């Protein structure tokens, strides 16, 4: 049997309501962007889950490596002054 050429893989992101962030739903195979959108609609939004869909070629996504997480995020770990709780507020001050 000759090897059949596969449809490329696309990652699907769905916004459930305007104003909310897009969230990864899964992936679909499709020959082009238009069909990727249609397949994503049929696969992931059969019950009104979506207001808007993004499809992105899977190989266009660059992901960080979880094994490097410690060193990758290290630069921000010692900057606790980025959190509001770092600051000492005078007794009695309100609405701050």
């Amino acid at each position, binding site marked *: 049997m000759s090897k059949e050429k596969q449809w490329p893989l696309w990652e699907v992101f769905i916004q459930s309501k305007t104003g909310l962030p897009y969230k990864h739903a899964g992936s679909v195979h499709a020959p082009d962007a238009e*069909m990727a959108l249609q397949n994503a609609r049929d696969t992931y939004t*059969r019950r009104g889950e979506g207001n808007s869909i993004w499809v992105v070629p899977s190989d266009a996504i660059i992901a960080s490596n979880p094994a490097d997480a410690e060193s990758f995020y290290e630069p921000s770990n010692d900057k606790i002054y980025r959190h509001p709780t770092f600051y000492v507020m005078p007794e009695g001050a309100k609405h701050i």
Partner: protein
Amino acid sequence: MEKKNPEDSFQVKIDAEEKIEPKDWMPDEYRRNLIRQISQHAHSEVIGMQPEGNWITRAPSLRAKAVLLAKIQDEGGHGLYLYSACETLGISRDELIEQLHSGKAKYSSIFNYPTLTWADIGAVGWLVDGAAIVNQVSLQRTSYGPYSRAMIRICKEESFHQRQGYEIMANMAKGTAEQKQMAQDALNRWWWPSLMMFGPHDTESAHSAKSMKWKIKRESNDELRQRFIDKTVQQAEVIGLSIPDPDLKWNEQRKHYDFGKINWEEFTNVLNGNGPCNKQRMANHIQAHQNGKWVREAAIAYAEKQKNKKVPA
């Protein structure tokens, strides 16, 4: 600091209920176990479309037909969520399909039974989807992130499936004597195969120990089977049908139903390809896949042509 062996840190993560994600390190056997289980699950969803598809053209009302179509479309969708989760483990869709066609990958043996009457569509939704839900609710907490997410999505959709099946059974059970008999007959034929869906007893299950340690499975075959029986008996009583098991009896001490012996010989026999519909199910899938080949190729050719057009002259 002493360098930890990766399998130990992996187990620490699992024990802490942290999900494993596609790019995380995982033991090869964990990956293989997952591919086997998720692909079997995906194939079951897709093959499961066939026994139900058998009744689309003969559904007794327009409502019933629309519902059945939507349900079968859902099953196809569930297959796709699961293939998508499985592909994150580094196996391609065509390899998965090839494993199904060669018989290397299995699907749930329940789908090798025929749907003889309309009541079977009721029984499949009520019992087969009911059993699947018990299993899938438990798998929502599986340790592999993409599998868990697919399960959560599937569980949200499955409850419609079970309710539509139970509605069919309830309506037939309160219809004419003949209709009630059809419903009872369907229950008689689907009850035992539904119990087999949970797999062999814990003491006999080949993959269970490792799967439990790695939290791929969260509860054992026997625990899940018992839960299904406990909740289904009352549902049968409500619609006036009887479960075809003379040994079925509430055990006040265990607070569970005791039930009769499962015919594992039949289970093994169907699993090994000798059920009533094994050959037909597989032949249909292979034929549909082959018949769709030119469509898949044409779509790629069209996409490439469009891409080339966009390059400015």
